[in-house]
C-alpha cells in the first residue's frame, strides 16, 4: 500500500523538507549542474546563431575542406562553408527540434493521457490500443508519410517526432493520473463537491508534474537524436539550414581526410543528449519523491 501511495502523494517539498544527507544533495546538484552546463552551452550557441554567425550559412568563399585555422575556427566543408557557422545553426535546429517535439508531445500526450485515465470500458480499451499502435509504429515511417504529404522541412520532422512521442507520454500520463485518482485526497475533494475539471487542474496535474517533467526532459534528448537521424536521411530541415544530422551525412565521405566535419556535429549531438539526460536525472532526484525519499 505505502509503495503505491508514495509516488503521487509526497511532493518535492516533502522530499526537500526531509533534509537528505549532504552527499545525496551534492551528488544531485553535481548531476544537475553538469547537465545544465552541457545543454546550456549548446543553447547559448543556438541563441547566438539567431543574431550572429562568423559567416553566412551559405557563404562558400572559404575554399574546400580547409583545416582548422585562423579564418575558420574548425575549417570548412567540401563546399567551402564555414563549419563553426554550420555547427551554430545546427545547434539552433537541434534545440528547435527538441522543444517543438516536446511541446507537441506534452500537449497531445497529456490531453490523451488524462482522457485515457478517465475512460472506462470499451473507450479505455480503444484508447489504449490506439496508443500501443502509435508507439509500435516506426517514427521513421511516420516521418516519411508526413514528408510525403507535406515536404522535407524541420516542421515535418518535428511533427513526426512529436506525434510519436505523444503516444509514449500519453501512456505514462494515463498511469500517473490513475494512480493519483486512487488517492484519498481526490475522494476528499469530490466529497466536498469539487468538479472533475477542477480536480484535474488543481490536484491531478500538480501531482503528476514532477514525474512528467523528468519524462519530458528525457523525450527532449530522444527528439534531438531522432531529428539528427531524420535529417541524416534527408527527411529533416532542407539546406541551407545545416542540421547536425545532415552535416554528419555530408562529411561522411571525407571523414579520413577531414574528420572535423563529422566529429564536431557528432560530439555536440552527444554532449547535448548527455546534458539533457543529466538534467532529467538531476530533476528526478530533486523532484521525484520516490527516489528522493529513498535516498534521504
Amino acid at each position, binding site marked *: 500500500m505505502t509503495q503505491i*501511495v508514495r509516488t503521487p*502523494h*509526497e*511532493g*518535492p*517539498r*516533502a522530499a526537500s*523538507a526531509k533534509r537528505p544527507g549532504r552527499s545525496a544533495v551534492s551528488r544531485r546538484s553535481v548531476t544537475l549542474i553538469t547537465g545544465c552546463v552541457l545543454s546550456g552551452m549548446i543553447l547559448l550557441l543556438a541563441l547566438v546563431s539567431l543574431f550572429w554567425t562568423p559567416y553566412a550559412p551559405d557563404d562558400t568563399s572559404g575554399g574546400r575542406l580547409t583545416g582548422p585555422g585562423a579564418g575558420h575556427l574548425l575549417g570548412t566543408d567540401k563546399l567551402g562553408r564555414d563549419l563553426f557557422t554550420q555547427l551554430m545553426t545546427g545547434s539552433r535546429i537541434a534545440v528547435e527540434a527538441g522543444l517543438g517535439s516536446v511541446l507537441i508531445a506534452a500537449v497531445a500526450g497529456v490531453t490523451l493521457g488524462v482522457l485515457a485515465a478517465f475512460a*472506462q470500458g470499451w473507450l479505455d480499451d480503444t484508447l489504449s490500443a490506439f496508443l500501443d499502435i502509435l508507439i509500435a509504429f516506426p517514427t521513421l515511417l511516420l516521418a516519411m508519410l508526413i514528408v510525403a504529404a507535406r515536404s522535407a522541412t524541420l516542421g515535418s520532422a518535428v511533427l513526426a517526432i512529436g506525434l510519436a512521442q505523444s503516444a509514449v507520454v500519453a501512456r505514462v500520463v494515463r498511469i500517473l493520473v490513475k494512480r493519483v485518482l486512487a*488517492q*484519498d*485526497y481526490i*475522494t*476528499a*475533494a*469530490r*466529497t*466536498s*463537491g*469539487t*468538479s*472533475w475539471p*477542477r480536480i484535474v487542474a*488543481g*490536484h491531478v496535474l*500538480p*501531482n503528476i508534474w514532477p514525474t512528467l517533467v523528468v519524462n519530458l526532459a528525457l523525450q527532449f534528448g530522444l527528439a534531438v537524436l531522432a531529428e539528427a537521424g531524420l535529417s541524416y536521411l534527408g527527411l529533416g530541415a532542407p539546406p541551407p539550414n545545416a542540421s547536425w544530422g545532415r552535416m554528419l551525412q555530408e562529411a561522411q565521405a571525407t571523414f579520413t581526410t577531414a574528420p572535423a566535419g563529422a566529429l564536431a556535429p557528432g560530439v555536440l549531438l552527444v554532449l547535448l543528449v548527455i546534458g539533457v539526460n543529466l538534467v532529467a536525472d538531476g530533476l528526478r532526484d530533486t523532484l521525484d519523491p520516490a527516489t528522493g525519499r529513498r535516498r534521504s
Partner: protein
Amino acid sequence: MTLLDIRGLTIRTTDGHTLVDDLSLTIAGGERRGLIGESGSGKSLTTLAVLGLLPDGMTATGSIELAGTQIVGAREKHLTRVRGTDAAIVFQEPLTALDPLMRVGRQIAEPLARRRGLKGAELQRAVARALEQVRLPEPDRIARAFPHEISGGQRQRVALAMALACEPKLLIADEPTTALDVSVQADMLDLIDTLVRERDMAVLFVSHDLAVVARVTDRVLVMKDGRAVEEGDVREIVRRPREEYTAALVASARRLESALDTRRAR
C-alpha cells in the same frame, strides 16, 4: 425527520462478489449513529456509497435517500451538489486525505469559495475561522503550511475542518482516530463530539472499536461480512449483546478498556 434512509443496499464488484448485502439504516436529523464491525466488514464501502463515491467497477443497488435525494444511480452533476452540503466524510488516514502539494488553507478555501462564493480577505477570514473551530492554534500559520509540515493530529483536524466547511447536515466519520497517536485520539473524539452537539449535526461514526463508538454515539449498527448483524442502543448492546460476534467485539473493547485502566492505575 429522516435525513438518511438506506434500504436494501447491496454493493457488488463486477466479478460478482457481494461486499455489502441488503443493508438498511436510517438516521434522523441530529441523530448520532455508530457503525461497527471488524475490519473488512464493508463499513467504508457503505459510507462511500452514501455520497456516490464507490470505487470504479463497484455497483450499488437498493435505495439511498440523503436529504430527499436518491443517491443510487444519480448523475455526477447531482451528486456534486449533495456532497459537502448534505453529507461530508472524514477519512481514516489524514495524511493521504490532504493534497501533499497544496497549502492547507487553500484546500479548506476550495469548498468555501465554491459553495459560499467567498473571495479575498473574506475567504481568508473564513478559512481562519474554520481552523479555529477545530481548535487549531495559530490558524494563520497552519493555513500557510503544507500537509507534511503539520502533525498527524493537526492534519486530521484540518480534514475535519474541510468536511465541516459547508456545514453538512450529516457528518460521516470513518475511523477518524484509528491512524492517530493514542495520545491525541481522545482529544479528537471529544472535538467531534463537541462540534456535532454544537451544530446539531447528525453523525455516522464508523469504527471497528466499540469503545470509541460508544463515546460519541447513542445507537449502533453492527456489521459482519457486509450484513447487518444487530442494531440497538449502545449501552444495551454492551450489556446484552444478542450475537456472539457482537459479544466478541464488546469483549475486545473491554479488554482494551481494562488494559488502559490498569495502565492508568499504575
